[in-house]
């Protein structure tokens, strides 16, 4: 079993990651639960990671993989902060529906 990451054409990786990214974008725009919206954003970041790893393998340099490390670390920090913000809001408003987060307009 000798599988090489470059056996599959680059375009397949890119198409998959573009599809995942689009699913994430659509999720952010249509879902109403703050946590689900946040999960969709994480999906976007991870689809970018896929793009980076694929490019990295096909270019034969590891810059892309290093960037993936940083993206993972940043995503973890973002997750921690994001969940804390959502909890702070939930304690005050008892809702996670972003349609109800509407005190300020115009």
């Amino acid at each position, binding site marked *: 079993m000798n599988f090489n990451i470059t056996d599959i054409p680059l375009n397949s990786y890119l198409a998959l990651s573009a599809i995942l990214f689009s699913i994430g974008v659509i999720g952010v725009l249509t879902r109403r639960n703050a946590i689900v919206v946040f999960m969709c954003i994480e999906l976007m970041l991870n689809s970018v990671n896929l793009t980076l790893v694929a490019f990295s393998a096909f270019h034969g340099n590891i810059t892309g993989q290093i960037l993936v490390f940083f993206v993972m670390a940043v995503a973890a920090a973002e997750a921690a902060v994001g*969940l804390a913000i959502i909890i702070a809001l939930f304690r005050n408003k008892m809702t996670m529906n972003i349609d109800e987060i509407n005190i300020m307009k115009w």
Partner: protein
Amino acid sequence: MLVDYIPVGIMIVFGVAFGLFMMKASEWFGPKNPNEIKQSIYESGMEPIRSARERMSIKYYMVAMLFIIFDIEVVFMYPWAVNFRQLGMFGLIEMFIFVAILMAGFVYVWKKGALKWD
């Protein structure tokens, strides 16, 4: 190349369709006799005590959050460990600085009592 996958595709379509058909078929033809025990949640033979949808203590959240952060930082040690010999002294000092910065955060978390369970 894509043509090679056609048998696989047909297989998947048939598999899914057949599975769905059998599930529906048993619903159509089978006898129905619901009672309270049958309707309750299956908990490996245990009696379900209360609803599983309950609020978790904030402590779990704190621990999980800190775990995510410190867990991910370890990722940066793998490339260093793999290249430990080539990087030599320079790499060692760099890693000490990295860990020192991480430790500053850890001391903060510790002294603030985020790791206390009770």
